[in-house]
């Protein structure tokens, strides 16, 4: 499995669990889950790009 695939899988599973842990209604869970998933992926990509400049 590629690094990208592992990242997406981890982000999806963790976001799914946290959406049920942290929110009560289906609509809130959906919004929270999507935000968390995108946050995971975006932060990792940004951190990866920053890491290029770190010797």
């Amino acid at each position, binding site marked *: 499995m590629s690094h990208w695939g592992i990242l997406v*899988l*981890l982000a999806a599973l963790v976001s799914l669990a946290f959406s049920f842990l942290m929110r009560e209604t289906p609509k809130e869970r959906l919004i929270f889950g999507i935000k968390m998933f995108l946050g995971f992926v975006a932060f990792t990509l940004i951190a990866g790009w920053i890491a290029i400049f770190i010797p």
Partner: protein
Amino acid sequence: MISKPAAEAEKDQFSRIGIACFLAWLVPGAGHLYLRKYWHAAVYFFSVTALVVVGVLLQGEMHSLLRANSGEGFLQWLAALGNVALGGYHLLMQALGLALGDVTVRNYEYGTTFIIVAALINLLVVLDAFDHARGVK
């Protein structure tokens, strides 16, 4: 002074909380199943089980207090302590000799991370079952 029915109700509530937390620890989602929170049970079972299965398939390591290598260092000991939260999966993997880890494999670190994350999420699931059993949520 607490009346007899009130004392019995409190005892029932206490045992309900205990059973829910124990089941949630033993099998992810089982505590919520006991509390009749079916969607919660399904989601927690699926997410924690998937994390564990992928972690094992990626040849990650489950640091365990039951294994001799748990005392290699402070961080390994912390990971082993966290993995206690995996409950039944922890005991099952220990019994079957799974998740021994192979540091030479490219995905070793990823697999180990999946297993530790699964354990920590299951810990939160146990706390969630505790809240549901108390009627806080």
